[in-house]
């Protein structure tokens, strides 16, 4: 069981790291502000979600797990709103 959990964590966290790196590649390579915003918030938010998912078995309780999930939800909310604000400031 513990081996399965370890494999799950390694899989999810690796996928998360890949998304973070993909986000940075997009940030460096994309041609204009809206596409760069896209790369930054979308990819990084999925990356954080996968990292949180992978770390859930280590939170040591339901409360800790809930806290992690709410951190991710909060980042999703602020990511969506900040993207809109910046995109409007550019327009």
């Amino acid at each position: 069981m513990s081996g399965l959990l370890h494999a799950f964590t390694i899989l999810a966290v690796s996928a998360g790291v890949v998304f973070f790196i993909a986000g940075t590649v997009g940030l460096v390579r994309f041609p204009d502000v809206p596409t760069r915003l896209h790369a930054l918030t979308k990819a990084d938010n999925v990356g954080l979600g996968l990292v949180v998912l992978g770390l859930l078995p280590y939170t040591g309780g339901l409360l800790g797990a809930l806290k992690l999930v709410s951190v991710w939800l909060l980042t999703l909310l602020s990511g969506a709103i900040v993207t809109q604000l910046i995109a409007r400031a550019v327009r």
Partner: protein
Amino acid sequence: MSSFLLVSAVLVLASIAIGLVRILYSRQAADCMMAAQLVGTGGIAVLLLVAVATETAPTGDVALMLALLAAFASVAFVGGMRGTGSKATEGADK
């Protein structure tokens, strides 16, 4: 397990650093405004990975604080860039 998580943290930290160089050297204001969002999201991931890897005190509270405050910082940046006629706003007016 712990060294795997630390390697992941180092990789995320490196990608934050490269992203920061990219957006802060940009001529356009909107790129600079993304900085808090980038470091907020990436920083939370780094923090959580390192905290689990090194078994430090529970850091869920610090992650929550970063999530709340990084969002505010981004809002303040957008306001700050608009409120002034800087090099930055010239880019924003394009």
